């Protein structure tokens, strides 16, 4: 039996009320108004960091040594040369003898990556494949895309042992249907006329794929417990359900008014949402739309109950929200507004990539050492034990801090340091089980921070060196999600 062994999701903490977007930019295109709010990645998040967060949610309690492949799907990868999946595998602290791949260029890349993972497991070339997907597509200021697009991520572990949802079949259609596009080096999404997308693509391909799937599997659509497909147009979302003969309760809420359309991640986020509510025996179909469509069927097993409590998934992330409160802030975070950074923001120290390579486990994977003689965990990697009563040399074993919680020993909110979201908050973390180091904090306001606050580690962009095109990643402390 092969299928989903574990699942996870991530929704960035910040949400913006679409009224704020409309208030700022609605004068330009009055027809863009949409209700509700959408999820906005913080300035230090991108498709990779969000997918890492979803991946960590998915890997909760699972030995990372078991992962044989990491696939990443996104249309907004930070790098076009330097494999983004490999950045993620380093962040997860995976083994080196694994396979990694990026799936990109279309919003159905997420479901395609899942199908490739299923194929690899079925073929026996991998026991466990991580599929992580994250997207943060950018619309121009005042565009409909700016209202519709939300940021988010999902991750699935595909394997053949402890399957919570068995792969039940798939049906794909592939067309060079140019609805949205972005050329090399372009930042902003472009699209052809909405009526064309809606009538010629959206309402056809999802139906075609799903009908192909049910036919192939010899079942009626009424036999599906839930169906997850993206919502590009609210009215036509319902129309698709009607064409397929699906009731409202069968359609997974696309969260258009809470998260927005999260691109490549969208169908898998909704699949995770469906799994959270599923019972053994449920049949869930998920459809990825873009350049055609992939429809994939899963049948939930008895194992589902075991994973549920430990996953943050969609539901807990939806609850952990805070208002960004300003369109201008969102625009600045996305570099839509050139902002005055001052000399500290304009000066970016160079990145020694050879240093990064040598220290990749400690930088990307937040791995330090633990002394075999006295047991003291320490970060970063030390050769001489830091315990003053020990001090032995070269008696260290690797020790990963990224999945350890800690207490905030002390902190400050710094207005002198440059931060895209001032003040720059940083402090010391004392880790459960030992070890102390200083880290930036993120996703928190200074007023909420206090000594001894419980924190956990989150993989983030530390800096972007625009001149060299280098995105520097590291770990920051965030309040533990309640």
């Amino acid at each position: 039996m092969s299928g989903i062994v574990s699942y996870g999701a991530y929704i960035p903490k910040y949400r913006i009320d679409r009224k704020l977007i409309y208030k700022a930019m609605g004068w330009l295109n009055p027809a863009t108004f949409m209700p509700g709010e959408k999820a906005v990645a913080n300035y230090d998040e991108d498709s990779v960091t969000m997918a890492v967060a979803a991946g960590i949610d998915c890997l909760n309690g699972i030995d990372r040594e078991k992962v044989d492949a990491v696939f990443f799907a996104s249309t907004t990868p930070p790098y076009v040369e330097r494999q983004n999946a490999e950045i993620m595998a380093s962040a997860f602290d995976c083994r080196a003898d694994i396979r990694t791949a990026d799936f990109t260029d279309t919003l159905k890349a997420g479901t395609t990556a899942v199908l490739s993972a299923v194929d690899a497991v079925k073929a026996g070339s991998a026991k466990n494949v991580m599929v992580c997907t994250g997207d943060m597509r950018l619309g121009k200021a005042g565009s409909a895309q700016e209202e519709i697009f939300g940021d988010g991520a999902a991750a699935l572990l595909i394997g053949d042992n402890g399957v919570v949802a068995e792969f039940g079949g798939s049906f794909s259609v592939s067309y060079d249907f140019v609805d949205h596009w972005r050329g090399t080096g372009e930042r902003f999404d472009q699209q052809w006329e909405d009526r064309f997308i809606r009538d010629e693509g959206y309402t056809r391909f999802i139906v075609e794929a799903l009908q192909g799937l049910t036919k192939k599997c010899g079942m009626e659509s009424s036999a599906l417990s839930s169906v997850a497909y993206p919502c590009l147009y609210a009215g036509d979302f319902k129309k698709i359900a009607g064409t397929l003969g699906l009731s409202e309760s069968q359609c997974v809420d696309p969260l258009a008014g809470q998260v927005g359309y999260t691109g490549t991640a969208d169908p898998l986020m909704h699949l995770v949402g469906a799994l959270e509510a599923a019972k053994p025996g449920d049949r869930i179909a998920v459809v990825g739309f873009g350049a055609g469509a992939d429809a994939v069927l899963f049948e939930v097993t008895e194992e589902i109950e075991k994973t549920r409590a430990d996953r943050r998934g969609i539901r807990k992330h939806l609850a952990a929200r805070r208002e960004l409160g300003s369109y201008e802030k969102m625009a600045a975070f996305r570099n839509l507004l050139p902002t005055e950074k001052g000399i500290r923001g304009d000066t970016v120290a160079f990145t020694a990539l050879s240093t990064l390579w040598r220290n990749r486990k400690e930088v990307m994977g937040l791995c330090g050492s633990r002394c075999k003689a006295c047991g003291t965990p320490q970060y970063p990697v030390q050769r001489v034990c830091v315990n003053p009563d020990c001090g032995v040399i070269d008696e260290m074993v690797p020790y990963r801090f990224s999945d350890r919680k800690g207490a905030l020993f002390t902190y400050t909110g710094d207005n002198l340091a440059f931060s895209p979201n001032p003040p720059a908050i940083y402090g010391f973390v004392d880790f459960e089980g030992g070890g102390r180091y200083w880290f930036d904090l993120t996703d928190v306001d200074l007023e909420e921070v206090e000594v001894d606050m419980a924190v956990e580690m989150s993989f983030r962009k530390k800096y972007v060196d625009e001149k060299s095109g280098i995105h520097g990643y590291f770990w920051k402390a965030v309040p533990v999600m309640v």
Partner: protein
Amino acid sequence: MTFHEEEDIIMAEGIKDKVAIIGMGCTRFGERWDAGAEDLIVEAFKEAIEDAGIEKKEIQAAWFGSCFDEVNVGKAATPLSLTLKLPFIPVTRVENFCATGSEALRGAVYAVASGAYDICLALGSEKLKDTGYGGLPDFSQVLGTRNRLIFPNITAPGGFAMLATRYFAKYGLGPEEGKEILAMVSAKSHKNGARNPKAHLRKEISVEKILKAPMIAWPLGLFDCCGVSDGAAAAIVCRADLAKNFRSDPVHVKSMQIALSSGEELMYTDWDGTYVKTAVKCAARAYDEAGIKNPREEISMMELHDCFSITELVTYEDLGISPRGKAGNDVRDGFFNLDGKIPCQPDGGLKCFGHPIGASGLRMMYEMYKQFQGKAGDRQIKDPRIGLTHNMGGFPAMNLISVNIVGR
């Protein structure tokens, strides 16, 4: 008998009373848009050599301190030798964060104490106002390629603010109460600095105004932070037994110690974050060498590294002057005021005299020297016997401390 049996250990003699300071110079500190590092070097040197009454050719070796000065004068010790046209003598550049000035002096003093030379020059200078920064330049450029990847987005005020956060938490001080104590520390220094013609910031500031200042790094506001300045300071040191040949009132070095972090503060969890571990270790060694048993009674005056008000507050405790957690009481009692038991920062300190990094340690010593000689003007302390300077480089969690004790 082995060497390791205690009674057999031959203790090092140390440097107590082996070296004397016979001349000092210090520029006006401040935003010296008119002066480059070379001008500042010459200004300090000229005063020092005239004060010592020696000729340049009598200097046998020199130590040059500069930290961020690479942006102005470049690396190595040649900026000093070229500027002063030192005639092919040994010149060494030292850099040890913000304790660089004390390190230049320590190099010169230890060289004389070793017997290698009779007369040496120590000169520190810093031209920070050519960096373009308000505050110190960005650390991410200078902390090393690995640290650049993992250090937080830290600045000097933020690094020290975390000391205040922890201090307030441990001793149960609410932000208002804690900040008020810190404000009193700064207000005292402003009062002293206003009386110092060479100081960068010469204005008395009330506690109320200090408390209302803009926040720099929570909980430190603008007036909790020292000035960032241009300046230079210099000392001529010689063998103690020769000192009276040059002047009747030389100042004798009792001890010059430094202590550096071992990594425990940053990476191990037994440091409570409310004090500076190196300062405690360093002070103990300095007191031992200088023969000081009860610092609260024996020390006459101090220049402490008050880069931030909180640094000065915890240093009162680290030096064994105030009991742990009780420095605030001494502050409220005026113990460290110019007319208190141990006047602290009589020249205004880093807070008001300013902080050109390479010069600061020497500037502290300049004030001790002038006080001993009775030349401190309105700031004159009556009959000082023992003076202490405390110079710090780095952050509370990763630093070096220099504690220096001098007397008549």
